[in-house]
């Protein structure tokens, strides 16, 4: 028998309240679905905690909740997303991701087959990232009390020696690099959510792990000043946070910003700025001027392809501290504001 293959759950093809109540059904869900898919030596002990070996250096620790609609979207699903997001939060801190926890909140009536699909995707993503899901929890709430499924993952990583990445490290003259096209995830989700389709275009989430890209960058130059994954609020939010934390200004060159043409088209139509929507497989790096070309080269040649469209998009300046300014192709300037929140398409 292949122990990686989940067994059918007896008599239930949907999640029951009892699956979260700690009894026989909960045990069955754990033993027949979660354990075979996520198996590792820590989970196999079936204790209430994972006992992890100590690292010699610093630990990085992070947590994030995933509440995406729809659960399955072009380019990914909530399972892989919940691994990539947390892995990326560790990676951009300069840590090597090692262990994850996973907490599931399931809605009563959620199809078991879909749950299996999510956990399978999560397991595949974890394998790709070289992390293990070492502890977890499942709760079930009544129908209508959650949107199918929520997942919270926390992650532990091992910090590389000699790395000091921080939002407050930006210095005038530093260069701003983005790892690829902006806005793919947010626009793909918005169009999927509203059933919009654009003929001949393939809008896909960019959900991807960035641990190999970060490794390639830091192997080239360990002194990178700051790195952030550009998730909610997109590039605009990240750059405003960096400028503010370091009390410096940032100037972007509009012509250099990589945006996929299908994303641009959809964003134009919806009246939404691709710089303000979420990415799930893109990072922003701030690198001293003299090292920028080398780091960019390392990103573009990273074998997993996550940095192939990396671009130098701007620089850090002394002027207008806390403010991000865009230089347009016409030679005019405008402010890039911190986005407000919910993206609401314009009337006309």
């Amino acid at each position, binding site marked *: 028998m292949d122990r990686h293959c989940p067994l059918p759950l007896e008599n239930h093809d949907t999640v029951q309240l009892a699956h979260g109540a700690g009894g026989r059904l909960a045990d069955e869900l754990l033993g027949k679905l979660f354990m075979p898919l996520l198996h590792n030596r820590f989970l196999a002990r079936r204790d209430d905690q994972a006992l992890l070996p100590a690292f010699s250096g610093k630990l990085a620790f992070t947590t994030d909740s995933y509440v995406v609609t729809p659960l399955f979207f072009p380019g990914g699903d909530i399972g892989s997303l919940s691994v990539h997001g947390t892995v990326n939060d560790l990676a951009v801190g300069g840590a090597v991701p090692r262990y994850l926890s996973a907490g599931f909140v399931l809605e009563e009536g959620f199809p078991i087959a879909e749950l299996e699909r999510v956990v399978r995707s999560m397991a595949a993503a974890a394998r790709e990232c070289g992390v293990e899901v070492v502890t977890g929890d499942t709760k079930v709430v009544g129908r209508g009390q959650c949107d199918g499924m929520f997942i919270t993952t926390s992650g532990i990583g091992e910090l590389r020696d000699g790395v000091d990445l921080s939002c407050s490290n930006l210095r005038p003259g530093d260069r701003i690099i983005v790892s690829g096209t902006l806005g793919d995830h947010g626009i793909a989700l918005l169009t999927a959510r*509203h059933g*919009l389709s654009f003929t001949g275009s393939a809008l896909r989430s960019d959900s991807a792990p960035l641990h190999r890209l970060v490794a390639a960058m830091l192997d080239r130059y360990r002194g990178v000043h700051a790195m952030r994954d550009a998730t909610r609020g997109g590039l605009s939010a990240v750059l405003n946070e960096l400028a*503010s934390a370091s009390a410096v200004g940032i100037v972007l060159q509009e012509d250099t910003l990589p945006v996929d*043409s299908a994303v*641009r*088209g959809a964003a*134009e139509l*919806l*009246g939404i700025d691709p710089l303000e929507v979420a990415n799930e497989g893109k990072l922003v790096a701030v690198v001293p001027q003299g090292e920028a070309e080398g780091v960019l080269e390392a990103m573009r040649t990273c074998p997993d392809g996550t940095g192939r469209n990396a671009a130098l998009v701007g620089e850090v300046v002394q002027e*207008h*501290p*806390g*403010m*991000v*300014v865009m230089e*347009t*192709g*016409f*030679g*005019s*300037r*405008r*402010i890039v*504001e*911190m986005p*407000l929140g*919910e*993206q*609401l*398409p*314009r*009337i*006309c």
Partner: protein
Amino acid sequence: MKYIDEYRDAEVVRRIAERLAQATTRPWTIMEICGGQTHSILRYGLDQLLPEGISLVHGPGCPVCVTSVKTIDRAIAIASKPGTLLAAFGDMLRVPGSSGDLAAARSRGGDVRFVFSPLEALQLARENPHKEVVFLAVGFETTAPGNAMAVRQAAREGLMNFSVLVSHFLVPPAMEAILASSGNRIQGFLGAGHVCTVTGTEPYLPIARKFQTPVVVAGFEPVDLLSAILRLVQMLEEELVGVENAYGRVVEPQGNPAAAAVVREVFEVADVAWRGIGVIPASGLVLRESFREWDALRKFELGGVDTADDVRCRSGDVLAGRITPDSCDAFGRECRPEHPLGAPMVSGEGACAAYYRYRCSSAKPFSC
């Protein structure tokens, strides 16, 4: 991207800006009517490319901005009733009423959805036969045909759980009101391109003649806008009065007769109140008597709704072109996108929001 990139070509923009500088011998004050144009001008910093003396004044053409507080309060009242579903265009959700907005009504349990088209609201009515589905039908001539289509379709299907809360405005009467107002300083208009797609260019001729003010219909991309400004300045310099079309790739002189016909079938012209400006005669659309069964105002008892604009907000002066947004005392202080006092701070097309977003960050003012 085809049909976009060629109208954002930096070299073409530079050449038009040069010609504009050569053509300009005197100061001119020009109003762009449409909020979409205001947004483009500030987003691309086109005003920074104009020769000294050319002032752009931002007009009232933002449907989100001119929708009255009363309409927002009524929408909130409807959304708060059990068994109703209120559908609206996305940026209506954060327009402040006299207490709160539709997003807040949603958080209190009201069923508020944002839709991309009135036909999507119609679909919600089909899918939710036990709910009263109300579409907040706002806009100018541009959105009127779609909204009219939704009502006509509901009538044809006998879809009785669908209705519209109408707040429709017409551009030419507003232009006339601005030109007739005391202290008017507008010398020429950039016509709203997408409004003219429906109406054509003819409705502007009497206004241009009566007030001796040229109108050039403009698009929304940098090349469109600058070409239209160039033509308008040439007309002003040569003392030409008339209506010209600098958005010929989209706007036909006769407009879209089929769209105009469905608007006439469903709506009739009425005096309406513009937020911050007041009542302008014959400046809006209301449902015709024959479609009264789809009128949310008749369907719901909304008598108790009491409304008031925030007295600190000078959106009326902004919308009439009397002041720029940053001249308002509340701008960037009490009034910010996360806490708007007036609607122009909400919509991406509102002049105040465009100024705040592109010119004055929360950190400190920039070139204003």
